[in-house]
């Protein structure tokens, strides 16, 4: 099943609605990375609220998305991990190191707002110094 990717302002929102096969996940990754460039997105939100299991491939793909998007100039945040899923992930050692997470979509948007704001401030500070 294809994951819909919505554009919201400067951000892309991919909302996973059902369990995904490995192929679906890879497809999601490619689509997101391509669209980050096409829409000049500053942030990517992947909403996994609907997932009640997350295997190692899914976790790795999410991490890859975050790292690849960062290389393309976009910050990624994973939102909506269920408590049970979080617990299971930690027990399996799948901890999404280096990837930002937030409680839900709203938090994720707020996080990205803060993050991009920071980047702008840092940039202007650099300019001022220069």
């Amino acid at each position, binding site marked *: 099943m294809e994951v819909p990717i919505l554009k919201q302002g400067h951000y892309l929102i991919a909302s996973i609605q059902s369990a995904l096969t490995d192929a679906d996940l890879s497809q999601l990754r490619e689509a997101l990375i391509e669209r980050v460039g096409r829409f000049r997105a500053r942030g990517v939100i992947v909403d996994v609220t609907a997932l009640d299991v997350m295997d190692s491939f899914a976790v790795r793909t999410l991490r890859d998305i975050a790292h690849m998007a960062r290389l393309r100039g976009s910050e990624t945040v994973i939102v909506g991990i269920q*408590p049970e899923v979080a617990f299971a992930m930690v027990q399996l050692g799948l901890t999404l190191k280096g990837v930002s997470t937030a409680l839900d979509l709203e938090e994720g948007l707020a996080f990205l707002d803060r993050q991009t704001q920071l980047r702008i401030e840092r940039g202007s500070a650099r300019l001022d110094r220069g």
Partner: protein
Amino acid sequence: MATKGKNALPSPSDPQTQSESTAALLRELVALLRQNRTQLREEWARRITRAQLLTAMTEEEIFAEATSVYDNYVEALETGTFEALQAYARNLSERIIPRGVETHEVVGIVLLLRDVLARSLFAKYHEDFDKLNRILDAYEPAANRIANTVAVGFVQERERIIRQQQEAIRELSTPVLQVRERLLILPIIGVIDPQRARQLTEQLLRAIRTNRAKVVVIDITGVAAMDSNVANHLVQTVEASRLLGATVIVTGLSPEIAQTLVTIGVDLSEMATVGDLQGGIEEAERLLGYKVLPLEEVSPKT
């Protein structure tokens, strides 16, 4: 009872003696014990006091318990069934455990009774070694089984109480408290075993979701000791909370725990730690953008 016992006593020279069954010997024994009940019981109580067992109980209590133990003991010897004795042992344990009676005391008094009775048998039959031998053959297994029954009953009762208390402790589950909008504290007190750690984590994750928490302060001032298992549970809790978008601050690590953790080499680099709960809450407020000011500073007098 005493007269009946006397009549049942065959004389040592009786030719029937050779063919006496164990049951008959036990009957004889029981009759003898009934006959000398007062004297043996007193001797036993005296020995208990001298051995400084059951110090938690008064002498009258010891004597009263000694009497009922004695009667139950003789009854078990007589009937060869141990259900009544088992029930009595359980009942006795239930009464004396809360008073701090230890296992060695219970085992001690039963062994003392065994010794007292055996001595009385020696005294009675010392002239007829053969008969003494056979009496002891009948007496020993039964007495051992009685001692076993009482000791096992006591230990089982103790274990039941311990289990009950463990459950009670577990039910005093750790509360997850909200101190500010989006700020939770989780004070952990006592021993963390894997089961409790799991329960704690699940509870915390659910609370993070329902309260939409951004920061959680876990206070472990009340945790006496920590090993690598517990530390790993803590790390897992921190990571799981992060997956839900909440930052965890751990506070109240005692000097001992800090030393243990560094010595056993647990990787706590991912964990934010602050000295005490107050510091942790202040840090959490800073993360959330709160600033606590004295009232005068907020609205200075004009």
